[in-house]
């Protein structure tokens, strides 16, 4: 109830235009700090771990998009251009804080140590994929790395992150949850539900919006009329900061501070990372239909990897040679991993019915039995299914 706030006697309408939300930035593109800016404490080791994750993500994206173009992969989706937002935020967390991402955050997994094989098994949906070949490429998940399996329906993870963080608060182990999402997903009702519940129930959650300018073809000007996502925080009396999302140091520092607010005070925080989706939305998309090359070029000038590399070089922690070596090494490892994953068998036929429930219910077991019998009758018609029959090994495969 706000009746005790000041009273006025003329009808004045506000719009919020009165207040600008500034952008927090530390690093210029050439790797120097802005005047008055101070770099966060960051050891050489950690800085290089961060940079490696960014570079890994970039190389992975390039290789896998190429693989998709060659028809080796059905689908791919790049993080390209947004590595600083994703890796910077992840690096500011504890490694066992929970991550509930949208789909463009492979950098977070890379930072935490998800292996090339783990990436590849998911991308190729083979028998070793944790997800048992059930979801499209890029729907990673890892219990070990506290990375919730990706779900395609947008924004559903945002209120889930609030519930997850509420559980963490009850457990009193000083952990928090971060949820990543795009500025498009922030239009969903689930976003509003999540922010409101988080602020009412005071949970340790960080909402990180990657404002990358587009939701597929839809520019932000057709997504919202306001100055970005940040001002929505005022509607929930939530801590908010806008940050240059291509500036690793700024994202890192903002998230460090946000984590403190979340964990020490059980207060949610919204971070809006201003960035740009340098690539197409996904391998199914061609942005030429909806945005200009000039615009893309202007943003390529702000490449977060280059910016970070310049900073590392100025620190004396990195050089041209190391860069080349790392890139080659990553490329080689990724190609080798891809080949290994391609050679793996598909998931067994029985994986079609497991995990629907903790146990396979009798009716579903019957459906599987009927399917098995059918596949045995027509093994040539269902090569994958035949390969994945229980007795496929003894039959010598298919």
């Amino acid at each position, binding site marked *: 109830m706000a009746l005790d706030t000041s009273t006025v006697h003329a009808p004045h309408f506000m719009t919020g235009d009165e207040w600008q939300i500034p952008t927090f930035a530390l690093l210029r593109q050439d790797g120097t700090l802005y005047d008055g800016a101070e770099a966060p404490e960051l050891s050489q080791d950690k800085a290089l771990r961060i940079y490696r994750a960014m570079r890994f993500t970039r190389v992975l994206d390039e290789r896998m998009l190429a693989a998709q173009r060659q028809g080796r992969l059905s689908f791919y989706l790049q993080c390209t251009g947004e590595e600083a937002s994703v890796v910077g935020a992840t690096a500011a967390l504890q490694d066992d804080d929970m991550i509930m991402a949208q789909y463009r955050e492979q950098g977070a997994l890379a930072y935490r140590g998800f292996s090339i094989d783990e990436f590849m098994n998911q991308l190729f949906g083979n028998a070793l994929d944790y997800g048992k070949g059930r979801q499209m490429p890029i729907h990673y998940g890892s219990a070990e790395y506290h990375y919730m399996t990706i779900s395609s329906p947008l924004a559903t993870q945002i209120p889930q992150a609030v519930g997850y963080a*509420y*559980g963490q608060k009850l457990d009193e182990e000083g952990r928090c949850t971060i949820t990543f999402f795009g500025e498009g997903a922030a239009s969903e009702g689930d976003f509003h539900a999540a922010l409101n519940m988080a602020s009412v129930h005071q949970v340790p959650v960080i909402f990180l919006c990657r404002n990358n300018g587009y939701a597929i073809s839809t520019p932000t000007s057709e997504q919202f009329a306001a100055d970005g996502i940040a001002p929505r925080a005022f509607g929930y009396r939530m801590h908010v900061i806008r940050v240059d999302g291509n500036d690793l140091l700024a994202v890192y520092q903002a998230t460090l501070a946000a984590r403190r607010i979340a964990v020490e005070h059980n207060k949610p925080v919204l971070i809006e990372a201003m960035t740009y989706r340098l690539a197409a939305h996904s391998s199914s998309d061609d942005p030429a239909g909806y945005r200009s090359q000039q615009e893309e070029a202007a943003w390529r000038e702000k490449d977060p990897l280059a910016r970070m590399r310049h900073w590392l070089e100025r620190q004396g922690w990195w050089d041209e040679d190391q860069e080349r070596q790392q890139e080659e090494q990553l490329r080689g490892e990724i190609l080798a991993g891809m080949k290994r994953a391609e050679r793996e068998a598909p998931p067994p036929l029985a994986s079609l019915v497991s995990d629907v429930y903790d146990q396979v219910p009798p009716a579903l077991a019957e459906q599987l039995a009927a399917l098995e019998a059918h596949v045995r009758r027509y093994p040539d018609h269902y090569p994958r299914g035949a390969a994945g029959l229980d007795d496929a090994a003894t039959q010598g495969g298919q």
Partner: protein
Amino acid sequence: MAHINMLQAINQALDVAMQSDPKVICFGEDVGSFGGVFRATSHLQEKYGKARCFNTPLVEQGIVGFANGLAAQGHKAVAEIQFADYIYPAFDQIVNESAKFRYRSGNLFDVGGLTIRTPYGGGISGGHYHSQSPEAYFAHTPGLKVVVPRNPHQAKGLLLASIRDPNPVLFFEPKRLYRASSGEVPEGNYQLPLGEAEVVKVGRDLTLVAWGAQMPIIEEAAELAEGEGISCEVIDLRSILPWDRDCVADSVFKTGRLVISHEAPLTGGFAAEIAATIQQRCFLYLESPIARVTGLDTPFPLTLEKEYLPDALKVLEAIRASVNF
């Protein structure tokens, strides 16, 4: 044993669940200090504190989204949706998320700790937004369990089993029976099995199947039929998903006739699934067509709800028609 009504039994089940497991958390609109608009969560906040029993903002998609996350984190989330008619804003969180959480992650993550309680059904002058029976929507959704109790004893035992079941469960509470149905209920802790139907009355000539609020109706119809010399076997499905096909089929093998009743509209209601399955399993045993006695294919009405509802007389007519086919 105490003689209590269904609301009290549900309240006891929640109390026992929270008492026996500190991971159980109850929440929803008005469920906190007020104890819910039907008072199913009375005194729980008092006993277990605001952190474990609380009001949420008025947003069903948020309630279930939050519950999914809380369950994934390892808690047992017991969410209340104030009326089943208001569960649809949470449909995406239930159908795309709760139901697929374990499967899509290959069992890395699950929301098995989730239970959604919600009052459903008509006969309380609620019109079309306080009377719906939406169980069939969820029964078409693999990954969910759907449970409906018929009386206080069942409600307590099935709710305890639902909360502890390692799968997400939708628990539909027949609100017409909240106070109307009472009976002996064991104190303390007990569970009844999910996925198993119960033969409530053994019979010879015809099988009657229903669940929840429709059980007293078909039991009354069975009695009326008995007066005409027709012996009905009465089955309470209890779980809609997964449902106990063997129990129903075994009965129909014996009786050769089947009448199913629910309040939801006919087209696409869960009776369709039962009929489709049983006509296949019992084809050579059926002596007459399987009949469905259901709500009309319209929204739920108000002034004429008595006319709309599938009552004992309508079930009796279907029994007669089946026997005289």
